[in-house]
């Protein structure tokens, strides 16, 4: 979809009702249902809703095994504590990881803003900053995994209590870390296109023959913020419970 069709869409949108009658009008539409979202954005949202169900399944099964085991559950506050300056600070690594991921979400949101303003160098730099914070997050996770594996935590057991702790930990944080890693790779690919000005020249995008638009930065942003969003739930349910 090119720039002029976006202009037309806004004209169509102005005639459409909003609120609940807008929902009925949109869903009974014989055209695209989501008038303010392009196909690209809609497909990313559909993917994210499906991903929500996957992460929900992980967290729900974690809840089920934790509630059903009669063996004491390890205390995450102590397990994820770090010795800093001879003092044991509970959960500190996870707190730093959380702040790091929030910061990456902030730089990503700003990148989307610069991309729509067609300030491509600034947008690319902000995306590189996002990728940097993402890679830092994965690095800290690798450190966390190494530490736990050295302490004897395995998917089938651990020295601190219920065996299910290990499988839940590796499954949930592993899947989240995989999402972050993929995000970093795609951020770098799109940042490169933005930096080169591919979207100013409407060059075909990655994986497609369609003309690239700056909207891809917003779509990338949706994925990235989702990864941050999932971490909010993992932080609350896995580390704070």
């Amino acid at each position: 979809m090119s720039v002029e069709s976006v202009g037309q869409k806004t004209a169509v949108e102005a005639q459409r009702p909003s609120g609940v009658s807008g929902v009925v009008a949109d869903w009974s539409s014989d055209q695209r249902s989501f008038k303010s979202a392009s196909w690209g954005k809609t497909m990313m949202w559909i993917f994210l809703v499906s991903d929500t169900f996957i992460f929900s399944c992980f967290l729900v099964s974690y809840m089920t095994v934790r509630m059903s085991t009669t063996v004491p559950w390890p205390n995450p506050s102590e397990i994820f504590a770090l010795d800093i300056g001879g003092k044991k600070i509970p959960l500190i690594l996870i707190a730093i990881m959380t702040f790091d991921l929030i910061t990456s979400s902030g730089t990503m949101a700003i990148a989307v803003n610069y991309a729509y303003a067609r300030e491509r160098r600034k947008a690319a730099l902000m995306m590189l900053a996002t990728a940097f914070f993402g890679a830092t997050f994965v690095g800290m996770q690798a450190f966390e995994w190494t530490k736990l594996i050295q302490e004897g935590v395995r998917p089938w057991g651990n020295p601190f209590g219920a065996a299910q702790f290990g499988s839940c930990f590796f499954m949930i944080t592993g899947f989240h870390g995989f999402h972050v890693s993929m995000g970093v790779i795609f951020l770098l690919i799109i940042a490169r296109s933005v930096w080169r000005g591919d979207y100013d020249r409407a060059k075909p995008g990655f994986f497609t023959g369609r003309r690239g638009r700056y909207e891809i930065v917003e779509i990338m942003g949706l994925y990235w913020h989702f990864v941050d969003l999932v971490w909010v739930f993992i932080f609350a349910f896995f580390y704070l419970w």
Partner: protein
Amino acid sequence: MTALAHASSAKSRSTPGAAVHGQQHPIALYLLVWVLLFVLSACSYLVDYFNFHGELRWGLIILFMLLKAGLIVAVFMHMAWERLALVAAILVPPLAVLVFVGAMALEGGYTNITRQVFFAAATQSRAVEH
């Protein structure tokens, strides 16, 4: 018509920074949300640091979690500015997960009781025998 649209898009291209199309919002708003997410994360960390227990702990954890999730979805993911049809299509299905959570919580509690009745007792009696 197309020429007109071209003219307007060319004009908008020449003025970067103007709210042309797409989800473009003030950077100050993003920075505000960023600060709020920092504060809320610090609060949920402090819940653990001060070792709160029971309903207070759970109330605070879930409150901060929902506030953070809401800010990310509404502002960073631009949900606050999307059409209600899209918002409903995205947010309503995950609410069904709550039913699943409830069902599995019942299941987990039941399994725990049966384990305590049959296995924990058996382990204790074996311990007495030996």
